[in-house]
């Protein structure tokens, strides 16, 4: 193993390609993070609503997208959906749809846990001063619940960032896809993929540690 001449320079010579990849990763990450966590809140509220017309579709949505692999969903949106849909589906759209819906399903459960963990007395006090449902959610419940849900939601965000690599399977130009391109041109898969792995690690590890610290602080505070 030692005979191999590691040559990271060849990877960094293609730094423009890497930057393109990084931007691609960030773009799909932000789309899926915002859309996924927002949709997740709506679905989470619907899932435990008193109206059956909201509850059942939400439950089906959550169970389906939690129990099917993301890559299958991405392939479906890229290969199957365009035939049904009257418009073009780019790799970005297909991957974003798959990852967003998947993340919404998982975060719906996080929101449910967070919201139901708030003391019912808070609902009572807010109702007693005449607040309506949306006001109570917005001003009293969610602000308190979000603090508690932060570690779990941050974990979801980390998962979403990792899932962006799946978009390379349908040729969306994120980091891993670019690395594959570099590797095939320069015949340096070892360095190329090592760089990508390290890039993700360097970005995510501090966030992971911060999440641990956050969880510990909250366990003490509560």
């Amino acid at each position, binding site marked *: 193993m030692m005979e191999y001449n590691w040559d990271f320079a060849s990877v960094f010579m293609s730094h423009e390609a890497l930057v393109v990849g990084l931007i691609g990763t960030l773009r799909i990450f932000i789309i899926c993070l915002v859309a996924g966590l927002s949709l997740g809140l709506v679905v989470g509220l619907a899932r435990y609503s008193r109206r059956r017309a909201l509850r059942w579709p939400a439950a089906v949505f959550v169970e389906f997208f939690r129990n099917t692999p993301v890559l299958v969903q991405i392939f479906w949106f890229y290969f199957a959906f365009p035939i049904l849909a009257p418009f073009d589906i780019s790799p970005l759209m297909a991957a974003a749809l798959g990852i967003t819906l998947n993340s919404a399903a998982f975060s719906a459960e996080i929101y449910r846990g967070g919201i139901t963990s708030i003391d019912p007395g808070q609902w009572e006090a807010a*109702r007693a*001063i005449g*607040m309506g449902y949306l006001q109570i959610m917005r001003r009293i419940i969610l602000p308190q619940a979000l603090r508690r849900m932060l570690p779990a939601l941050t974990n979801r965000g980390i998962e979403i960032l990792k899932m962006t690599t799946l978009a390379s399977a349908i040729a969306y130009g994120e980091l891993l896809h670019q690395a594959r391109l570099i590797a095939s041109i320069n015949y340096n898969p070892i360095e190329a993929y090592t760089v990508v792995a390290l890039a993700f690690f360097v970005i995510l590890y501090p966030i992971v540690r911060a999440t641990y610290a956050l969880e510990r602080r909250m366990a003490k505070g509560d």
Partner: protein
Amino acid sequence: MTVDPTPAEPILRIRGLHKRFGDNHVLRGINLDVMPGDRIAVLGASGSGKSTFLRCLNFMEIPSEGEITLEGTMLGRALRDGSRDYPESTLPAVRQRIGMVFQQFNLFPHMTTLGNVTEGLRIVQHRDRATSEARAMQELTRVGLAEKAQEYPARLSGGQKQRVAIARALALDPQLMLFDEPTSALDPELVGEVLGVIRSLAEEGRTMLLVTHEVGFAYHVANRVIFMADGIIQEEGPPDQVLKAPQNPRTQAFLARHKQFEF
């Protein structure tokens, strides 16, 4: 507040109030007129329905049957089968006119004391910040906690929290105050400061219903006492009668068990 010599209209008129939770028939026909300035103490054993009764008055629980008339207007909507329903959208307006103080205080922990008291003013009554804060400080001063305006609830004692809760309810200028065992969750040495505030409200002539175990306090502050058992009002009258010379055997039995109070 001067006492009007002409016979006044009741602030709250309750007729035939029933509440069922599934098979459990908790309130079995309550009739009551609450006149302006009344301080009504509601006594009873656990399970007598006294908390449920109070919670029906501001629709934290929806009555199964019965009519509740607030200042001449019968609340809710009549349905074809004779019962009434209470659409959620109409309730906030009612709840601004009836204030409630809870046993567990239920302050909003993520807001300061001032924030807790202004919340109703700003979000429900849509007043601007300056007006709300001025009004809130009035109430906080009345309950003796003006200097704690910027503190968060976690830093307050139980008695202080409950006084903030009272200020929060008063800030909306309700016609009627409901106190649901306001001192039951407090350490004994903190009970006095809360009772002191309630007493001063009573002396101002505030209309209130007070569910409490503090029988001695009820004797001094209330002008009417209700004793509840088995979901109905067993006995009602002035404190001297109900507390010192109860007619109803249930009342007698209850008071006999609570001999430790002093008049």
